[in-house]
């Protein structure tokens, strides 16, 4: 399975990502949302413009300048620029577009395709939204940079094999997925996998993280990292091509660290040249290297084993938010707000540790994670509630909307919480499949389910049926039937 290397070190495919999402407004409160016309602005942080300005000044510009030097020296680079970044640049920093255009459309560059909002839509069971966002991104890239992406960047979410037919129909010849960490893998992540006939390339997380965060760590036993040392590691990596992807955010550091990194990167081409390491572009690699079938169960790859049941999410809060945003489409006529809320960045902020694989790591406390989730749900539910009032099936839309934490159904044994809460009727139905009988009986005896459905979800018909039910299974069947009926109405 592992390709034998005839001679010499592997080639390197360097990828650089420019991704930003609109940050949500952490101070958002339904009571102070103000005029409905101002709503989309109220949902997102008023500091987005300043923050993006800082990102451009500290990360995008210095990195693009270094890479411009690389490209002129004959190095090949791959880029991934989200639609949101291109949109924000056009709006707030149009004078920087030229610099980005210069590197992205360079003859030695390749631009990757992705979802416009760098979203989690690729994990939805219905992939029409995913397809729409990929088309949107491709169109934006063509308009701005005159380049049509041919390789798809899926490193932000787990690789879902169901995407393959869509990607093929959109003209993509290969896709990237995150290599996670070679340490676990029984397979070599430096070769080309194939999923349903589409070549799948995997990034090398370990080498990426050496630059993304270990570079700055004084207690790392390899500190300080020199270009020569790094080039020697690449040279001894297995496989024929190593894919190293770095996020532009790695430059969001104090000035002295940024300068050190810029110097390291500037000197890297020479060190690589001395070590005999060449660079390459993904479309060529995908066409030339041997393939083997993508092992969906290999823990060394970030792939989705059971598509869409848990959406590739790893925490309870992420999962609740994912279900809410996945179901929000028909309830939110404002597609832009919905899509901005699908950005993967929101989900990364709902786990305590994120980053790695070329991204700057984030460590958040329990409380910070919960507060981010709570704000996110308040915004999404507020948006759905406002839209429901204008929906032609107002009552159905109100019952189907998601809820903020203060209105969710928190399951309890009587002595303690069970650790799960339903933030919508859909999630409630899912949770009924595994709610322990003791928990069900506790709530049913107190008429908690019926009161919640009546008072919060405003569905007296369902509340009545649920209250008359004797068993958990009976309640679940009533709720699922009602869900089917309501969704048919609003879609």
């Amino acid at each position, binding site marked *: 399975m592992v390709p034998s290397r005839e001679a010499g070190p592997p080639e390197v495919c360097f990828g650089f990502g420019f991704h930003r999402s609109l940050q949500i407004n952490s101070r958002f409160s339904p009571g102070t949302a103000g005029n409905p016309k101002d709503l989309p602005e109220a949902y997102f942080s008023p500091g987005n413009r300043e923050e993006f300005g800082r990102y451009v000044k500290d990360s995008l510009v210095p990195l693009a300048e270094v890479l411009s030097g690389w490209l002129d020296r004959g190095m090949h680079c791959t880029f991934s620029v989200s639609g949101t970044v291109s949109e924000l640049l056009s709006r707030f920093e149009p004078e920087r577009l030229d610099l980005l255009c210069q590197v992205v459309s360079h003859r030695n560059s390749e631009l990757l395709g992705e979802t416009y909002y760098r979203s989690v839509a690729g994990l939805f069971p219905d992939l029409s939204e995913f397809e729409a966002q990929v088309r949107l991104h491709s169109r934006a890239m063509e308009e701005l940079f005159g380049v049509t992406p041919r390789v798809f960047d899926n490193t932000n979410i787990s690789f879902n094999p169901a995407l393959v037919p869509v990607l093929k129909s959109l003209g993509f010849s290969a896709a990237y997925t995150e290599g996670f960490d070679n340490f*676990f893998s029984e397979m070599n992540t430096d070769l080309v996998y194939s999923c349903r006939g589409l070549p799948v390339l995997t990034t090398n997380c370990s080498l990426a993280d050496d630059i993304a965060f270990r570079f700055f760590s004084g207690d790392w036993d390899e500190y300080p990292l020199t270009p020569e040392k790094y080039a020697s590691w690449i040279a001894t990596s297995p496989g024929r091509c190593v894919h190293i992807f770095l996020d532009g955010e790695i430059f969001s550091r104090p000035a002295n660290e940024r300068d050190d990194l810029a110097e390291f990167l500037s000197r890297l081409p020479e060190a690589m040249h001395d070590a005999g390491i060449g660079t390459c572009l993904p479309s060529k690699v995908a066409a030339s290297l041997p393939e083997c079938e993508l092992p969906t169960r290999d*823990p060394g790859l970030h792939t989705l084993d059971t598509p869409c049941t848990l959406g590739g999410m790893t925490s*309870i809060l992420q999962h609740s938010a994912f279900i809410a945003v996945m179901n929000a489409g028909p309830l939110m006529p404002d597609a832009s707000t919905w899509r901005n809320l699908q950005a993967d960045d929101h989900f990364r902020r709902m786990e305590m540790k994120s980053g790695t694989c070329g991204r700057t790591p984030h460590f958040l406390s329990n409380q910070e994670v*919960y507060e981010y989730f709570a704000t996110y749900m308040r915004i999404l539910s507020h948006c759905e509630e406002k839209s429901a009032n204008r929906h032609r099936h107002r009552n159905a839309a109100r019952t189907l909307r998601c809820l903020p934490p203060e209105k969710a159904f928190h399951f309890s044994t009587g002595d*303690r919480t069970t*650790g799960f809460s339903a933030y919508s009727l859909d999630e409630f139905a899912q949770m009924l499949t*595994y709610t*322990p009988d003791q928990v069900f009986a506790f709530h049913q005896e107190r008429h908690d389910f019926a009161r919640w459905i009546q008072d919060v979800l405003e569905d007296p018909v369902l509340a009545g049926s649920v209250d008359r039910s004797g068993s958990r299974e009976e309640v679940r069947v009533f709720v699922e039937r009602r869900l089917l009926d309501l969704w048919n109405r609003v879609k």
Partner: protein
Amino acid sequence: MEPRKIAFFAWESLYSVKIGGLAPAATYLAETLAKDHEVHYFTRGGGGGREINGVRYHYCQPHGENIIAFCRDMSALLLREFEEYDDPPFDIIHFHDWHFIEAMDALRSRNTVLTYHSTEYGRNGGHFGDWWEFGEISAKEWYEGYIAKQVTTVSKHTKTEVMWLYNVPEDKITVIPNGIFPDRYRVRVDPGQVKMAYGIHPLAPVVLFVGRLVYQKGPDLLVSAIPLVLRKRWDVQFLIVGEGPMSAGLKEKSRSLPVQFLGFLPDDEHLRVLNACDLVVIPSRNEPFGLVLTEAWSAERGVVATEVGGLSENIDNFVDGIKVPVRPESIAWGINYVIDDPVRMRALGVAGRRKVLAKFDWGTITSRMEDVYRKAMGENTDDRQ
């Protein structure tokens, strides 16, 4: 080693009475030996003798008003059974722990091997007891170490302990850890489905404890650690597998905590839970070997364990497990340190499985035991090593 006739005396086995780690350790050793030797396993339990996986089992049903009398009766019953099968005579008689001291005394002139799976001091959490059974059992443990031709212990820690407690000469002791059949402990399950079967959200991180609910195993330390874990990570759920005298008190103490006491689980369910959990915690106060550790590693589970006995010897800290001092704050720290990072937990488990395959395979362990048998029979083992 040429085929020999071997007798095992152990008060538990996998196919009759199974309490702790002794049952799988002695049973699997017997089964592996039985591939090349004639092995008879004398133990307690109902029914007549039978052969399972090549091992001939001999059962008895002893009685006694206390543990000492019970074991004395067990020794007498099984010694009679042994004598019936002692023609041709057994080459090796391998005793496990102290329960058959009277039989061992009767057979002291034969080629006896004794394995200390633990000591009474160790079972008491590393403390001396002032009750009469403690004194009796300790005395028996001293005597058996004195009369055995060869002694094995399951860890260096236990070796030091029996040298210190019972003055067993060092050159008589060989350290042979318990082996494991790693593939028996790894099963493919959907962790989300297993968690849901216990009323747990499929994405909630689950911490598993497996062991008797006795002071030595430290379940109380884990329960005290839970509120500290929850302070930093609210969604962690705990499953406690096993029973014991501390059960009622622990349940009362954890009424408002996300803990489920599952009691004894059938083997297949135990394996499902083991393979679905995110982390295994071993909070023992004293652990001669710690079979739970190699079981968890076999299932590629990450481990947080207290730095005692065999756990301390076998875990490479931060490589295949996290070692913490014996106190709730430290156990909570260990859990919090890894629970947020599924990748790291996975890395610990994968490294653990690699170690199990390299060091704890029953084939390797059994050939080391055969060397001890040779010594007990007065053969020179140097040529064979």
